[in-house]
């Protein structure tokens, strides 16, 4: 029974991964949009969101804003060029609260979150996490489900299994194994989606990691089971309301609208989906700079600004207003809202209630991040999910000899904050728990295990030479399984840890396990056991999908992910070269892409030299 379950899970995992790793064949939905169809440009708004109706020409006010944005971008470029000087300055803070121009937003976020430094300190770790996640991530189904529901109305994420959806999927997958205490929780996909609008894939991963662990943001507590930080912030929100907006608090209480009903998304996601996207982005600028105090202050600001209106509304009206109406354009300009926000922050600080009491131990990570968790034996099963290996029930048992979880001992460089250590006030870029390098020699490292097994995976298509023993009418015809990206990545010298001089995780003392006898599966033709015919949802690949959405409905791609075409060697080579969206843009599309700032800034971001640690003046 357990074996069946594991087999199903492995099949399901392999199917999901295949969808995200296969190259998009010609004629896939993405292609229509990548052609030089300029009408799409008018359907995409300033932030990259698709609009149902063609956008009117810019109003004088919008035109002015655009000009202003360009002027500001020039100033920001100058500041970014001399970040050591401007980074900690009041000038930068003042400019940031006017809104960071989209052209430079990614760079600014990266520098504020110290990403270049973290990335260089932990070189190779993201790739490692990504690979490990593909083998052992427990949340893969949920992540797949939610990637399909994240910013689908944005040009970057509208294409199912498109380049940016792949990035979103992999970042979430990698983070779920990087920080298994949080794993994946709904709400994180929107955050990563927002980050990916402005940052490259690996930067987005580290941005998420920093947001989760920096003292000033500490989102770990927001998403950890039980949502301890959310409860603390909601209690504090009630205290602020009692102190500052007594009348409104009384009204909300009378109507039965508790803070839990309307502040959950405000706090967990810093207002994503609850305010217009332009304002949300500016709030995120502020949030990335100043951290959690922005959440309490903005919650207060929203209610204070709309107090008079809210006082007139009954429960349904209140909920509708806070849930839906506020996400529509506001009468107040974004800049004015940000001015109110800054004033609120100053006001609450004066009143000594800008932040809730310090976090308890339940909000802090208990285990080091980026560590090894799980059973190597079980992982070995997932490394080679050929149908043959999965189908041999006996073989399955031998592949999983003794499922035991390795408990690596404390590591020398372990930097988990002591639970009783209170959070310090003020900004610091020291993570609560620093991402860790692998342990001392002898520590089991899952990622090291697949080394030899995976190198044989690209040969899988050759395994089909045997005689098909499966019934001819079975639901899943015998075909070699699509390899994991890790498999092909490892087959190339660049991605092999041993050959990468900068790979900090390749501990020299690490023992590379010898391949076991069972590893040598693959000499028989794969087939699916009878029992899986009707009960395995993942193998029914020919099912019409609900996944497509967005204004352009195109037929399902007929590539190997969806059809029964065998995986050829030439096709395999394409697995890792999906056509990047940005490169497919012709010159005539570039002006349109400039309205989607991230497209142009992605490359710009990657090579930033590490900046000096940012220090707040406050």
């Amino acid at each position, binding site marked *: 029974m357990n074996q069946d379950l594991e087999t199903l899970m492995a099949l399901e995992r392999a199917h999901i991964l295949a969808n995200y790793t296969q190259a998009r064949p010609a004629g896939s939905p993405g292609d229509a949009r990548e052609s030089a169809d300029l009408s799409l440009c008018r359907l995409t708004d300033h932030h990259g969101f698709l609009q149902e109706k063609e956008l009117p020409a810019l109003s004088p006010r919008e035109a002015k804003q655009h000009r202003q944005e360009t002027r500001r971008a020039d100033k920001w470029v100058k500041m970014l060029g001399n970040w050591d000087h401007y980074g900690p300055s009041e000038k930068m803070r003042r400019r940031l609260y006017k809104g960071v121009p989209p052209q430079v937003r990614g760079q600014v976020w990266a520098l504020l979150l110290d990403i270049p430094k973290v990335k260089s300190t932990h070189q190779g770790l993201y790739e490692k996490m990504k690979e490990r996640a593909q083998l052992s991530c427990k949340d893969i189904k949920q992540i797949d489900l939610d990637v399909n529901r994240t910013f689908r109305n944005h040009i970057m994420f509208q294409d199912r299994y498109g380049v940016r959806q792949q990035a979103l999927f992999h970042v979430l997958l990698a983070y779920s194994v990087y920080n298994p205490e949080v794993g994946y929780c709904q*709400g994180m996909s929107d955050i990563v989606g927002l980050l990916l609008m402005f940052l490259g894939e690996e930067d987005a991963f580290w941005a998420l990691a920093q947001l989760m662990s920096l003292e000033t943001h500490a989102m770990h507590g927001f998403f950890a089971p039980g949502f301890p930080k959310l409860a603390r912030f909601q209690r504090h929100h009630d205290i602020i309301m009692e102190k500052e907006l007594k009348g409104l608090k009384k009204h909300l209480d009378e109507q039965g609208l508790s803070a839990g009903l309307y502040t959950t998304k405000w706090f967990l996601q810093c207002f994503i989906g609850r305010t217009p996207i332009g304002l949300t982005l500016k709030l995120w600028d502020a949030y990335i700079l100043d951290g959690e105090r922005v959440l309490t202050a903005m919650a207060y600001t929203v209610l204070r600004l709309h107090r008079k209106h809210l006082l007139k509304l009954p429960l349904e009206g209140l909920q509708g207003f806070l849930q839906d109406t506020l996400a529509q354009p506001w009468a107040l300009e974004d800049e004015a809202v940000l001015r109110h926000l800054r004033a609120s922050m100053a006001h609450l600080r004066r009143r000594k209630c800008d932040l809730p009491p310090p976090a308890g131990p339940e909000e802090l990570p208990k285990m080091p991040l980026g560590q090894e968790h799980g059973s190597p034996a079980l992982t070995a099963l997932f490394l080679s999910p050929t149908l043959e290996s999965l189908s041999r029930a006996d073989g399955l048992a031998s592949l999983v000899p003794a499922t035991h979880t390795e408990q690596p001992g404390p590591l020398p460089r372990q930097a988990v904050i002591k639970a009783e250590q209170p959070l310090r006030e003020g900004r610091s870029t020291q993570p609560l728990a620093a991402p860790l390098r692998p342990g001392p020699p002898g520590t089991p490292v899952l990622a090291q295990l697949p080394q030899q097994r995976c190198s044989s995976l690209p040969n899988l298509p050759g395994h089909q030479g045997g005689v098909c023993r499966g019934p001819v009418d079975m639901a899943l015809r015998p075909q070699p399984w699509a390899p994991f990206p890790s498999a092909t990545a490892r087959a190339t010298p660049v991605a092999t840890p041993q050959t990468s001089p900068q790979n900090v995780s390749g501990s020299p003392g690490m023992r590379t396990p010898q391949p076991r006898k069972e590893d040598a599966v693959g000499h028989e033709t794969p087939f699916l056991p009878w029992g899986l015919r009707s009960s395995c949802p993942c193998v029914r690949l020919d099912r019409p999908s609900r996944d497509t959405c967005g204004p352009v409905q195109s037929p399902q791609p007929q590539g190997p992910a969806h059809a029964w075409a065998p995986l050829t060697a030439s096709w395999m080579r394409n697995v890792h070269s999906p056509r990047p969206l940005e490169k497919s843009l012709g010159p005539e599309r570039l002006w349109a892409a400039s309205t989607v700032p991230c497209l142009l800034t992605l490359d710009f971001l990657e090579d930033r030299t590490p900046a000096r640690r940012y220090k707040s003046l406050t």
Partner: protein
Amino acid sequence: MGNRAEEDYNFVFKVVLIGESGVGKTNLLSRFTRNEFKQDSRTTIGVEFSTRTVTLGTAAIKAQIWDTAGLERYRAITSAYYRGAVGALLVFDLTKHQTYAVAERWLKELYDHAEATIVVMLVGNKSDLQQAREVPTEEARMFAENNGLLFLETSALDSTNVELAFQMVLKEILTKVSKQRQSSSRTNAITLGGAQAGQEQGPGEKRACCISL
């Protein structure tokens, strides 16, 4: 939103939508309250709600539908909102057997936090995807019968049975309320938050209230 000034109602019934993540709870709600189906709907974080007033016979009922996040971790938050609910739609995706297989766990979760008399309907959603069906109608119907639940298959996408599903639940609640009123001269009604809007509407039956069954 259902905040129409002309609304005049006799009862407010709180109904919760529960079930696994991705089964279509949010779209069922938007189809019922706004006649909308969003292909690009977002994940529900925590709890949201919407209302719609329907007329059943002579009674105007304000259905206050609470949509909950399906992810297990969110149950820490969402289960608190089951309290006071008089109806529940336990939704599963009939193209994913796993979402049906856990129905029993959802039921337990519901009964742990809500009144035992709550009216529950088992809803198999996405009936438009017949070719991908993994849960046979009869199997689900049997499960519903054995557990004393109402049962219906719906499609929020093409609207099939959505209206009917909510109406059946509301009607069943109304029947229970009427029986209760007949058996007891004293109306066993409690007023919850949000009911004040209707309190000035008149005495007796015209008072809006959430009913405790």
